């Protein structure tokens, strides 16, 4: 069983090396400032992989590598004490001595959101800058989420008939 798992991990790692290539023109910004990555991000199966260390530093997150070597753990350095493990070969990938993960897997557990400006341009939004989430019915009683209006400037005009 142990052999089978190890074999699978190796195949994944090779696949990553063979089919993913570094792309230098990905632009990721936070607070309107462009992030400079320690290594070029990688586009794999239409999903962006980015170096964990650079991104976490920008977001104020800590990266830990337990002795087992099977995962990296990303922790909130603030009050929440939230830690998220990313298994190597599954959610994190060592490529040319750099540990990568999906952009979304790094930011989402900590409440950050990503806004896709174009195929190669993304803005990370801090949770404290986001409008609070809500769901309300429209006049036909269809539920609408505030997130349904992403990509458009939205004015909430809060009004009553009285």
């Amino acid at each position, binding site marked *: 069983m142990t052999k089978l798992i190890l074999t699978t991990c190796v195949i994944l790692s090779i696949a990553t090396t063979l089919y993913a290539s570094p792309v230098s023109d990905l632009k990721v910004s936070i607070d309107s400032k462009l992030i400079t990555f320690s290594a070029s991000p990688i586009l794999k199966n239409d999903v962006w992989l980015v170096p964990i260390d650079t991104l976490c530093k920008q977001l104020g997150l800590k990266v830990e590598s337990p002795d087992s070597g099977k995962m990296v753990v990303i922790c909130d350095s603030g009050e929440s004490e939230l830690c998220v493990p990313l298994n190597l070969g599954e959610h994190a990938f060592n490529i040319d001595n750099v540990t990568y993960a999906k952009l979304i897997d790094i930011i989402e557990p900590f409440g950050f959101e990503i806004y896709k400006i174009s195929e190669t341009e993304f803005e990370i939004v801090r949770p404290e800058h986001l409008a609070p989430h809500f769901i309300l019915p429209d006049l036909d009683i269809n539920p609408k989420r505030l997130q349904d209006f992403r990509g458009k400037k939205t004015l909430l005009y809060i009004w*009553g008939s*009285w």
Partner: protein
Amino acid sequence: MRPWHDKANAEFVTLVDSQNILGNLFNLKAIPYGVMIDEAGRLVKFPFSINVAKKETLAMLEKWLSDPAYNATLLNDVKPANISQNPKVIEANARFQLGRTLLEIGKKTEAMAEWRKALALDPKNWIIHKQIWAVEHPDKFYDGNVDYGWQKAQLESEKR
């Protein structure tokens, strides 16, 4: 809301907030209020007293739509949400919600009692105040036009 929406030939989306969810989220004491949110879901300006009949307000909104630099300027100026955690306000909100539920199941007297307690805790909350008036005097609110003259007179009489 449907009659107002249809009369305006509105192309925007109208949502119905019967639970005062937005009032709680943004700590609103009165309406109308505006909240501006950009393409990325960021709060740009909130909540602010809004009157779309004013030329200045429309000009500001048009500038926001057409000028990305203005959005960036507003983002720089926006302060983090200052949602009140005042225990009295929290209790007032809870009592306001309880009153709504009581009214829905036909317990009007009990609902009014909860709303009066809520208003005593948060006396400047005009959403609660008008809710009480609307249930006490539905003819001034739901028979055609809203009678704002009556509301002014009522306010003066309550001050005495």
